[in-house]
């Protein structure tokens, strides 16, 4: 066969079940040689029916159900849901509960970010370091399991406060674990800044410019890595964030490396916030110690999940079940930006770029 019979562009399907993608998303990718020339993103391969289910459960059962929407943002969902219910019912969370909500939120952020960056290292092909990073994350997972009783669905939230409490022993334990994670994370950051293999694979790859980031309306670390200096914790503080020395990290390059670096820096910030929370933890009850009926009404609340802004809309009526619960999750905003990131990318980088938006389809295609 002569070479001029070979078409210049090929179409390759990536997903919805694919070795390099953990989640059911379908990309139809046109390639020219090794380079991506056109991307079609097709979502909607899974439907879990959770929005419908929430209207079949009572408000108090839904705190548990919303926690199971996403395993890595599993604290942000019930928290935002509870915030909406509290807004409708005019419930005020006690001061100690507010701080403990922040503690739970930041602990989850640490382990979620470590997981994403570890996966990036895995996709870069640096397996040994991937194992090492997962081991660092394991310190955080053990911490979650020891404090909350579960590695993922930590069950910290309830309407009106939190379900757990800390004593001197557990505070000392958390502090010890944070020290370990902090030292290791600093090393990981150093490695990310110096290691040739990581730099070569991630620098200047999958770029999302500031203008494109604004066009797509991206949120979370994806936005911050493209110079969009936006964090719900600062813009619309909830829990105890208005009293904490929150540093919002943003970079300007918008490449895979920047997104990983924003996450790594945020881990250090989360650890700082946790230390301040544990130091300033006020006394008193952790929740309202009641199970009031939520009156009819509607509310919108939002919070900064590890992947970015999550928004809840809740409408209640006279029944114990909500009339409608709707949430907008960060991945829904972020995946459109893949069109820009994947344009002119190398085929070998596709999985890495997709991973860099920290996609979560279990909450997007609920």
């Amino acid at each position, binding site marked *: 066969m002569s070479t001029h019979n070979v078409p210049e562009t090929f179409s390759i399907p990536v997903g919805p079940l694919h070795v390099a993608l953990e989640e059911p998303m379908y990309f139809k990718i046109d390639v020219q040689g090794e380079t991506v020339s056109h991307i079609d993103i097709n979502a909607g391969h899974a439907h879990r029916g959770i929005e419908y289910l929430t209207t079949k*459960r009572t408000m*108090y059962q839904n705190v548990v*159900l919303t926690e199971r929407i996403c395993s890595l943002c599993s604290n942000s969902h019930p928290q935002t849901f509870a915030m909406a219910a509290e807004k409708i019912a005019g419930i005020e969370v006690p001061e100690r509960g507010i701080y403990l909500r922040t503690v739970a939120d930041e602990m989850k952020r640490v382990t979620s970010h470590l997981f994403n960056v570890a996966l990036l290292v895995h996709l870069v092909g640096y397996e040994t370091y991937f194992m090492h990073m997962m081991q660092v994350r394991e310190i955080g997972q053990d911490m979650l399991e020891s404090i909350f009783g*579960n590695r993922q669905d930590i069950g910290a939230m309830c309407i009106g406060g939190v379900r757990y409490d800390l004593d001197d022993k557990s505070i000392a334990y958390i502090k010890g674990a944070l020290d370990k994670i902090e030292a290791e994370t600093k090393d990981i950051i150093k490695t990310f800044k110096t290691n040739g293999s990581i730099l070569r694979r991630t620098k200047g790859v999958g770029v999302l410019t500031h203008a494109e980031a604004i066009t797509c309306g991206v949120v979370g670390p994806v936005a911050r890595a493209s110079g969009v200096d936006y964090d719900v914790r600062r813009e619309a503080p909830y829990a105890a964030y208005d009293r904490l020395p929150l540093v919002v990290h943003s970079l300007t390059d918008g490449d895979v490396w920047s997104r990983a670096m924003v996450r790594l820096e945020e881990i250090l910030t989360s650890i700082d916030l946790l230390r301040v929370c544990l130091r300033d933890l006020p006394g008193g009850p952790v929740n309202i110690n009641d199970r009031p009926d939520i009156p009819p009404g509607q509310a919108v609340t939002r919070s900064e999940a590890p992947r970015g802004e999550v928004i809840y809309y809740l409408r209640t009526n006279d029944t114990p079940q909500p009339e409608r619960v709707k949430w907008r999750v960060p991945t829904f905003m972020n995946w459109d930006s893949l069109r820009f990131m994947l344009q002119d990318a190398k085929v070998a980088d596709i999985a890495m770029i997709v991973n860099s938006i920290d996609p979560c389809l279990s909450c997007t295609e609920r």
Partner: protein
Amino acid sequence: MNFLTIFARNLKQGPQTEAFPLGPAFTPERLRGRIEFNADHCEGCRICERVCPANAIRFAKTPDGMTFDCWHNTCVFCGNCEFYCPTDAIHQTNDWDLSHVNADKFDMVEHGLIPNQKCVECGATALNTAPVIKNAKPPLSAEEYTELRARCPKCRAKYLKNRKVPA
């Protein structure tokens, strides 16, 4: 830390993976595992049944009293029941090992019975639940508790009302 240092440290520490099943698995005290029910402390309020998101808890009226069943294979270990239970009648142990052979699948149930009793005052048949005494002031003595518990709900209310409260 450069990689050689990590390597040396890991060599010294040995494998990070747990030795289970050849050794014990990491099990924190607070781990939320298998449900345990204590019928003696139960007030029969059935709040746990209502807040359970998985419908794992079922109460049923039988000739002997009220039965409690919690299906471990339906339970999602969320801990809502324990959290909202006004007494500590239901709680999550840190036992996570629920593996069992298929033949035993219908035995994976925590079962309890709140038995019927005859009210010592009026003779009516009523459940021998733990009395609700959270708001009783001053707190009941042990004898008072036993006396109260032996009554039906109506006579319990009467008993608490007529209780001589020292000034």
